[in-house]
C-alpha cells in the first residue's frame, strides 16, 4: 500500500484548503470584471438603466439629483431590500422547520433554471450582439438548453462530478452578480454595506434567521438545502480508505452506515472525526428574494420586473466532511463589489480584490478559531468599500500625477 514518504505539514493542508476557497472566489470576480468591462463599453458609466426591480422600488436614481438625495434614495432602497431578504429568510427557516426539504430543493432547482436559462441566455445574447457572432438560433437554442439542463442537474443532484457542480455554482454567482451591477451606483454601494450588516446580525445575533437555520440543521444533523459552494476536502491519506467517502452536500439517508464507516477511517480523515463531534456544519443562510413574474410591458420606460433570485447563501462554515463551505451569496456580493469597482477603473479593481481576499483570509482564520458558522460578508465588504473610497479619492490622484510627470508607474 503506497503512502506519502513524508506526512503533509499543517501549512500544506491548511494552505490547500484556503486556496480551494480563494480560487473560485477569484475566478467569479474575474469573470464578472470581464463581463462588466466588455458589456459596459458602449454605455457610459453615467447612463442610468431605469428598470424597476425590488432593489430600486423605493427610488430610481437620476444622475441629476444632488448627493444628499441620492444617498437618501439609496438608503431607502437598501432598507426595502434588506427587509424583503429578512422576511424571505424567516420564511425559509419556517419551511425548513416544517421539514419541507423537497419543496426547497425543487425551488432551488427552479431558481437555478431561471438564472442559467434566462439570465445566462440574455448575457449570451448581449455578447453575441456586441461581437456580431454569426451563430444561428438553432445552435444557440440547443447550446443554451444543454447548458441549463446540465446546470440544474448539477445543482439538484447531490452526486455529480464535484468539478461540474463547483463550476456551475460559480457561473450562477457570476450571472446574479452581473445583474446586481446593473443597479444604480449609490444604491449598489449602500446595498452592499446594508447586506454586510444584515449578515452580521443574522448570523451572530441569537434571534437571527441564519443562526436559527444553522442551529436547526445542526440539531437535526442535516444539511441545509441551499446553494452552497463546498470546497473539495483535503484528504491526507489516499490508500487506506476502503470505502467511499461521502461528501454530504445534501444528505439523502443517514444511519449507522455513515457512523461506522467514518469511525473506521477515522485517523485518515481527521476533519471528519471533527465533524463527528457534532460541532461543524455549514453556516448558511438563504438570501431569498421572492420570484417576481416577468412582466414585459413594451413602453418607453420599459418597466420590467426581473426575476430576482434567491438561494444564495451567506456565511461560511465547515462542511460535514470538514471542507470549507462558502455561501453563494458571498460569491455574489464580492463579485458585485469588484464589478462596481471595474465600472470606474481597473485601479479600484485591484485594490478591492486585495481587500476582499484579505477580508476572506481574516474570516477563515476566525472560522478556524471559533469553529462555528460565521458571516463572511462583513470584513470583506467593509475593507472593500473602504479601499474603493480611498483609491478613488486619494490614490488615483497620486498615481495619475506621478505617471503624468513620468515619475513612477
Amino acid at each position: 500500500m503506497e503512502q506519502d514518504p513524508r506526512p503533509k505539514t499543517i501549512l500544506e493542508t491548511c494552505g490547500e484548503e484556503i486556496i480551494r476557497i480563494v480560487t473560485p472566489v477569484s475566478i467569479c470576480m474575474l469573470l464578472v470584471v470581464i463581463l462588466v468591462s466588455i458589456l459596459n463599453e458602449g454605455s457610459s458609466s453615467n447612463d442610468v438603466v431605469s428598470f424597476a426591480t425590488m432593489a430600486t422600488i423605493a427610488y430610481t436614481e437620476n444622475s441629476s439629483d444632488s448627493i444628499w438625495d441620492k444617498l437618501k434614495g439609496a438608503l431607502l432602497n437598501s432598507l426595502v431590500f434588506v427587509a424583503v431578504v429578512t422576511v424571505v429568510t424567516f420564511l425559509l427557516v419556517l419551511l425548513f422547520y416544517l421539514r419541507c426539504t423537497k419543496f426547497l430543493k425543487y425551488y432551488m432547482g427552479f431558481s437555478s433554471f431561471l438564472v442559467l436559462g434566462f439570465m445566462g441566455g440574455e448575457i449570451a445574447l448581449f455578447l453575441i450582439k456586441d461581437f456580431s457572432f454569426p451563430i444561428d438560433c438553432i445552435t444557440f437554442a440547443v447550446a443554451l438548453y444543454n447548458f441549463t439542463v446540465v446546470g440544474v442537474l448539477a445543482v439538484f443532484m447531490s452526486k455529480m462530478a464535484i468539478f461540474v457542480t463547483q463550476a456551475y455554482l460559480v457561473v450562477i454567482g457570476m450571472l446574479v452578480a452581473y445583474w446586481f451591477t446593473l443597479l444604480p451606483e449609490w444604491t449598489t454601494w449602500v446595498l452592499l454595506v446594508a447586506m454586510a450588516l444584515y449578515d452580521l446580525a443574522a448570523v451572530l445575533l441569537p434571534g437571527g434567521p441564519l443562526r436559527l437555520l444553522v442551529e436547526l440543521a445542526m440539531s437535526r444533523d442535516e444539511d441545509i438545502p441551499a446553494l452552497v459552494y463546498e470546497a473539495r476536502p483535503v484528504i491526507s491519506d489516499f490508500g487506506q480508505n476502503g470505502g467511499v467517502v461521502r461528501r454530504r452536500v445534501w444528505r439523502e439517508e443517514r444511519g449507522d452506515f455513515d457512523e461506522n464507516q467514518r469511525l473506521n477511517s477515522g485517523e485518515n480523515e481527521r476533519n471528519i472525526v471533527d465533524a463527528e463531534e457534532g460541532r461543524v456544519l455549514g453556516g448558511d443562510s438563504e438570501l431569498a428574494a421572492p420570484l417576481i413574474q416577468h412582466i414585459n410591458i413594451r413602453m418607453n420606460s420599459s418597466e420590467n420586473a426581473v426575476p430576482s433570485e434567491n438561494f444564495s447563501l451567506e456565511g461560511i462554515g465547515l462542511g460535514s466532511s470538514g471542507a470549507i463551505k462558502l455561501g453563494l451569496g458571498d460569491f455574489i456580493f464580492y463579485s458585485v463589489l469588484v464589478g462596481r469597482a471595474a465600472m470606474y477603473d481597473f485601479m479600484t479593481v485591484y485594490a478591492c480584490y486585495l481587500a476582499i481576499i484579505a477580508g476572506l483570509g481574516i474570516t477563515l482564520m476566525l472560522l478556524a478559531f471559533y469553529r462555528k458558522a460565521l458571516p463572511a460578508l462583513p470584513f470583506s465588504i467593509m475593507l472593500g468599500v473602504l479601499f474603493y473610497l480611498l483609491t478613488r479619492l486619494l490614490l488615483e490622484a497620486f498615481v495619475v500625477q506621478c505617471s503624468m510627470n513620468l515619475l513612477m508607474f
Partner: protein
Amino acid sequence: MDNDSRSPFSNRHPTAAASVLPTTVATDEASSSTRRLGRTEYTTIDGPLGLSPDDSLTYARRFFKLGFLCLPFLWAVNCFYFWPVLRHHQFQQSHPRLRRYLVGSAIGFFLFTTILSSWALTFAIGGEHLFGHVWGELVMYNVAEKYGLTGWI
C-alpha cells in the same frame, strides 16, 4: 461486490457491511483489490469522494438515458465523471455494463457534436452567399431583436 441490482440503497448496506465488519477481512479485501487494480479501484474522477461502484452503474445509466433528450453535454459530463473507467481497460472485466454505457455516451456525444458543429460552421462560414436572405432570418442577433429577447434585464 459488483451486484447489478437496481436499487442503490439496498446495495449500500452489504457493501458497508463488507467494509465495516471484521476489519482484517475488510482491509485484506481492499488491499487485494488495490493490488489487482492498482490505484484505479475508484470508478469516478473524484476518486474516494465519488460514487461507489454500484451507485456508478445507476448514475451512468441515468445520464445515458437522459442524454437522449437532445443533451450531448450530459453525455460529455457522463464520460468526464467516469473517466477512469473509460481510460483503463481493467474495467472491462469488473464493470462491463458500466463501460458499455460510457462508450455509448462517448459515441453519442461525438456523433451529435459532429452534426451540430458541421451545421454551425456551414452557417457561420457560408453566410449570405449560401443561404440568401434566410441567413438574416436565422442568425441569432436578428432573431433576438425581432422578438425583443434582450429587453427584460
